[in-house]
């Protein structure tokens, strides 16, 4: 039988940026006649620098709950999360201010990250060019299509060059070209040492991932296959980055 991951079993040289230890989370309330739903019952996980990590699992298995706990926007009932570096979080639903323009959105979230006006402008230009939304900078968020909104959602998570990037199905609404650009971007980030963690449903993506964690029955299982191929993928990515 497959054993859940433990936080000490991996022996790679990359720095661990996020470590979750025996995380438990139950949704419920203190009101009578309401049901408690245990979601995580002892989840362990390690995220290392330069890895692209996939979190998979069935509907309602607790993937988003786990990610929200790792990011820090949801408190676990018990267990510990150690975090190092800075995080960029791209939630599944674009959590943005509908009435602000794209430029204003960058300014507001950039000020949250503590960036200067020049740094914010530079980041905005860089991602607008890369993800092709330059023509929408003066549009309000509520005037954008779902795909363009998702591009802004992703850019906001990335604009401060985080050490760990947490993505909850980040490519929803992307066209094929943007989807490929997204993966190039993820490869570049990983090659530069950023840990990229994403919740994914697509089987075909699994060859792009260095490590795959499956959330099942409240636990997290390392289901990474073809370890040697994964190492080859990482090596190839690093070679491309060096070139």
């Amino acid at each position: 039988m497959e054993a859940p991951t433990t936080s000490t079993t991996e022996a790679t040289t990359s720095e661990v940026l996020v470590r979750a230890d025996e995380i438990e989370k139950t949704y419920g309330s203190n009101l009578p006649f309401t049901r408690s739903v245990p979601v995580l019952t002892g989840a362990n996980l390690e995220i290392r620098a330069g890895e692209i990590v996939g979190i998979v699992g069935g509907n309602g298995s607790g993937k988003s709950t786990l990610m929200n706990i790792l990011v820090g926007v949801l408190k676990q009932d018990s267990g510990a999360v150690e975090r190092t570096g800075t995080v960029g979080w791209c939630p599944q639903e674009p959590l943005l201010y509908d009435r602000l323009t794209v430029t204003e959105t960058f300014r507001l979230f950039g000020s949250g990250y503590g960036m200067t006006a020049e740094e914010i402008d530079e980041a905005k230009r860089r991602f607008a060019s890369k993800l092709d939304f330059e023509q929408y900078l003066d549009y309000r968020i509520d005037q954008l299509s779902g795909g363009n909104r998702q591009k802004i959602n992703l850019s906001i998570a990335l604009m401060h060059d985080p050490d760990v990037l947490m993505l909850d199905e980040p490519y929803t609404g992307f066209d094929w070209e943007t989807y490929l650009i997204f993966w190039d971007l993820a490869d570049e980030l990983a090659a530069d040492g950023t840990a990229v963690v994403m919740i994914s449903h697509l089987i075909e993506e699994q060859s792009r991932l260095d490590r795959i964690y499956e959330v099942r029955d409240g636990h997290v299982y390392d289901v990474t296959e073809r370890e040697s191929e994964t190492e080859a993928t990482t090596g190839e990515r690093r070679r491309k980055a060096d070139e």
Partner: protein
Amino acid sequence: MNRIQTGIRTNVSTFLRTPLNVVLALLLPVVVIEGWGQAMAGLPTLPTVEAIPIDLGRLLGAIFGVAIIAGLMGLAQMISARAADRRLVQTGYPPRTLLATRLATLGGVTVVVAAVNYGVLWLTISPEAPVLTFVFLVLAGLVYAFLGALVGALLPRLFEGSLVVVFLAMMDAFLSGDSPLAADIPEFVEYFPLYHPKELLQEAMFQGTYTTGDLGFVAGYLLVLLVLVTVVFGVTMRTSGGWSA
């Protein structure tokens, strides 16, 4: 980048880009002030109040108009973008700074709403102390703006929250307003949010004076509401653990 400036600027933009807000702020005063005045026009002169009923009605309409708009704005400021607020806080934007920008915006909006109400009121009544009358209208608005923000922080649903604010403001303005229709008013009405602002406003409007005790009560009310909003907002925006660079 200055977080407070950025926050206030984006809050004001958001407010102005919501057409319903602007329409409410500009049109509601006319409807409420004249409507309340005409509703009380047919009532007999009150034994304890020197003002004629139609003027008293207009004054109550003005205080109700300011309170309800400011209250609903306060509610909307807390509810409309709660999920985005949590994301913003996660980026490192301090919750207290975020709240400060919201309350500062609310304060500004309340002053504008009070000015519109004062303008409509001034067309029909000449206040004995114009500046005091305006200041006390602003105070009434601030009380409800903070109250709306508190309701929004506690009850993060726009429909239910709006019902609470609207019914509270209606009952408050009605019971606090010396209306002969509301006979045998219990003493606890003195603790209602609009009771002392109304006393201040009425005195400034018709006599040109004010009572320090009423002013102190309103100041205390505002302070308590501010503390409650800060605590509740802080709890709702709390994140679990930070990232150490």
